């Protein structure tokens, strides 16, 4: 039934109205709905950034500049047809693997983790490239295979996913590694990965959990333990999550009002303008504001899935679907950790958290989605 509802429309609408802004934008390969939703979220992000950074106009300008840069990158990427990305994907993937290895060997350390690569002019996290490369590559690979995937295909795909994920996890950047795995995993899932393998994998994962636990770093383990009982260590590992919950809970239904949050302004909330910005947002705008933001995010995910459903070939479908779901996972993990549902992993709130590479790579992904949506071949039915 869903298939009926989502039955992709072919060609132009029959009763085409006067060409408007939407059509003009579409002629430039920009999807107006996605653009509007992204701008709305980024706008909210900039407003809340101002509050979370302690009324720093510099921070706001810098964030706005990054969003603007991201939008330009998005528009540029949208211009190329999806087939190009399918062709380029493996090379991009290989190149990114090289960069990741280089990062591990020569990267800059910041906050105890080696994530940055400094080229003198540009300083960036190669792991962000993988956010684009991973879904593209897995989609391109599965595109060439018969679906549902054979065991060999599954094994090859898992290899494609786990090598970079392992490299990123070694940095260590568990958050990004998780997102990379999610991106590849969703492509595989949407490609028709058999349920039995998934259930089997979950069982194996469950069995391997104690071994994984052994391999976690102390701080990572602490984060998981803290999640179970944040109040047990209110000044140590539980401090982040406790203060975050206080911020959100004290916001109440309608919030304390923009710029009136006390938890961030008085510096009780750590990482207020980056990973924990959702706590600031919830404190100042309350439950109503939270519902609004969730609606916007859901609308973006919905639009992306709509694009995936309307896509013309397997590569495009898997790419768009994987990006849509990765975006959702982004939101879910960040909010989940800020409200104390998930352990604290360094995942920013997309388009709202402060951070350059993240915003640009994210918008680049949307560029590919728009490319999928706007480059249509006339196909014989």
């Amino acid at each position, binding site marked *: 039934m869903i298939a009926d509802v989502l039955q992709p429309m072919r060609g132009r609408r029959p009763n085409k109205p006067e060409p408007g802004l939407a059509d003009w934008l579409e002629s430039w390969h920009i999807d107006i709905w996605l653009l509007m939703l992204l701008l709305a979220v980024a706008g909210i992000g900039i407003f809340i950034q101002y509050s979370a950074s302690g009324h720093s106009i510099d921070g706001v300008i810098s964030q706005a500049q990054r969003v603007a840069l991201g939008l330009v990158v998005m528009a540029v990427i949208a211009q190329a047809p999806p087939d190009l990305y399918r*062709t380029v994907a493996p090379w991009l993937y290989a190149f990114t693997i090289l960069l990741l290895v280089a990062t591990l060997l020569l990267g800059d350390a910041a906050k105890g983790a080696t994530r940055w690569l400094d080229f003198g002019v540009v300083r960036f996290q190669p792991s962000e490239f993988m956010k684009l490369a991973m879904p593209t590559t897995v989609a391109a690979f599965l595109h060439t295979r018969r679906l549902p995937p054979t065991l060999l295909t599954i094994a090859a795909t898992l290899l494609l996913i786990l090598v970079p994920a392992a490299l990123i996890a070694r940095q260590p950047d568990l958050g990004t590694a998780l997102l990379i795995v999610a991106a590849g995993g969703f492509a595989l899932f949407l490609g028709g990965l058999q349920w039995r393998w998934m259930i089997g994998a979950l069982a194996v994962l469950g069995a391997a959990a104690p071994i994984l636990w052994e391999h976690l770093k102390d701080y990572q383990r602490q984060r998981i333990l803290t999640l179970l009982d944040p109040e047990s260590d209110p000044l140590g590992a539980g401090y982040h999550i406790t203060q975050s*919950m206080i911020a959100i809970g004290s916001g109440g239904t309608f919030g304390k009002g923009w710029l009136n949050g*006390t*938890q961030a302004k008085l510096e009780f909330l750590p990482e207020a303008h980056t990973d924990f910005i959702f706590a600031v947002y*919830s404190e100042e705008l309350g439950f109503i504001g939270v519902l609004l933001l*969730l609606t916007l995010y859901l609308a973006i995910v919905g639009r992306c899935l709509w694009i*995936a459903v309307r896509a013309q070939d397997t590569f495009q479908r898997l790419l768009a*679907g994987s990006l849509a779901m990765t975006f959702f996972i982004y939101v879910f993990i960040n909010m989940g950790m800020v*409200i104390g*549902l998930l352990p604290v992993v360094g995942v920013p709130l997309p388009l709202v958290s402060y951070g350059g590479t993240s915003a640009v790579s994210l918008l680049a992904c949307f560029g590919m989605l728009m490319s999928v949506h706007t480059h249509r071949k006339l196909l014989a039915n």
Partner: protein
Amino acid sequence: MALFARRRRDALKNVHAERDSFLRRAGVAVLFCIAGVVLLIVRLADLQIVEHEHYQTRADENRMRVTPVAPVRGLIYDRNGTLLAQNQPAFVLEVTPEQVGNRTAMDELLAKLQHVITLTDTDITRFKDRVRKSPRYRGVPLRSNLTMEEVARYEIDRHQFPGVEINAGLTRNYPFGATASHLVGYVGGISEEELKQANESQFLGLTQIGKNGVEKSQEDLLRGEPGAKIIEANAYGRPLRELDYRRGYPGRNLYLSIDTKVQTVAEQAMGNFQGSVVALDPRNGEIIAMVSKPGFDPQLFVGGIDTASYQTLLNDPTRPLFNRSLQGLYPPGSTVKPAMALAGLEYGVVTPEHSEYCKGEMTLPGSSRKYRCWKRTGHGAVNMLEGVKRSCDIYFYNLATLLGIDRMHEAMTGFGLGHATGVDLPLEKDGLYPSREWKRRARKENWYPGETLNTGIGQGYVLATPMQLAQMVARIAMRGGGYKPHVLHATEDPITRKITEIVPEALPKIDLKDNGTWDVVIAAMEAVTQEQGGTAYAVGRNAPYRIAAKTGSAQVAGLRQDETRPQKQEEMPLRLRDHALFIAFAPAEAPRIAVAVMAEHGGHGASIAAPIARQVMDQYLLGYVLYNNEKAEVPSSRVTPALVPGLPVPPELQQMLQQTAPAAATPPAAVPATPAQQEDDDDR
């Protein structure tokens, strides 16, 4: 070129099947998203709606700090409104480390500051110690009590000292220094023990507490109620703004009954003697003056005394911190004789006319032990008046024997000996008036008849504080009435200015069967100062008011039976000399002041203690000191105040001159000093 080549077996993909499969999976993905969002919403609703109040409270607890606001301590005035303890603004130099920078910058700053203000090594060491212990954004005191000059020098160059600030606070100040230091007391840092005993909420924001004197006994009145500021602070505790203010209440101002002028005169009159002067108003028990010599500078204790000064005070052999008026226990000597005489008459063991023959010494029947009169040659036949006037020991030995220790104990305890007076000042001692029961308990011995004799002249086991002696004489002055001694006259609400007077607490009246008994003894006490042969005639004869008094010279070192006293106290080493005592009230017919003087090792009560009491009474009754402390050589010009050049006659005195007996108004030339008088001064 494509890295992923399509293999042959994959070449024939079922495009439609793949699309349908994708659509199904997309449907699952949508369900997954919905489930995730529902989970988020449920959790958020729980936090923001269900648990909202809990988290709201916790957010407020995070940011709100209650900062206590110390109340201003009440002022202490004397009865005339002279300030005895006040709060003075003091300048404190504070440095905020955060604004100074690193350690090198701090050292440079301290070096520069040294050109402007005096900094001792102790100051710097203490400062660096405090810097380590406090948050960097908080000002740390470097020096307190800056002089105005230092403040001025700092102000000129203040731009050179970033992070340095001079703040004004209030410190306790005692304008009269050592004067009345034991009475007013002092404040000092609150010890943990004191904090434990008190209700901590009453000391919020306070660092000082009354440690002695009125400052201690009236701490609750002086302290006031602390207020509080509710401050918004950030995660690092830095205060950002004031949210709310709860008003406290300043401490009450106290009016003491003491008269600073009388107090000063008493202290000066004591000269270099160690000892005590207590002057009471017998009509209400108010303390007019209370001196303990030597005194100390209470200012040393404010804000914490340094160890060296404290050790000096503690190790001083003259014990300046010891409040002799309340803690000093002395044998009262002959000053007990008027009360003894009252007891003898009341119990009917003697009549005023009853006489004993004094030949200088006596023995008890069945014992060879000799009990000596202070006058070796003896007084001859002595009746009660003569016994008191000339302080004949033999008379009182016999009186004591007639009374017996039990009745003596009952009577003298009634006059307040042996138990604390309950004055509103700390650390008062009970003293001791012995009894059979006491001796059995304390010494495990029976009472010996000979001890009754010694007790009868205020020696032996008897120990009394000067305050008790003053109370005893005040009660005689009031003919058995009288009030509990106290120093607090009134308290004042510092805001409404409403003054509440303290109601004196009447002591249980000593009722005698015959009120005439009082007249007999008081007449004898008057004779001490008014009649030739009276032990204090030299002091009393020229007074423009009548003094009823009794001298005392309490023996410090006991004499062996074979030992004879040196005739002259002046020839003895100081530590062996007798304590000089004097109790008096005046004017005899309408008492307004009762005095007890105790000069340690003063030698003679008459020549040393009596003149001190006289000067105190002069100052209180006349408003100035008429008496010239030169024995028997009072120049005639000093007798009547009208003859003192440049001094107007106070109306009070004029009135008194008319009231007093003709003897007092008689020019002193009519009362020549005789050798006999000189000898009679040598009283015990």
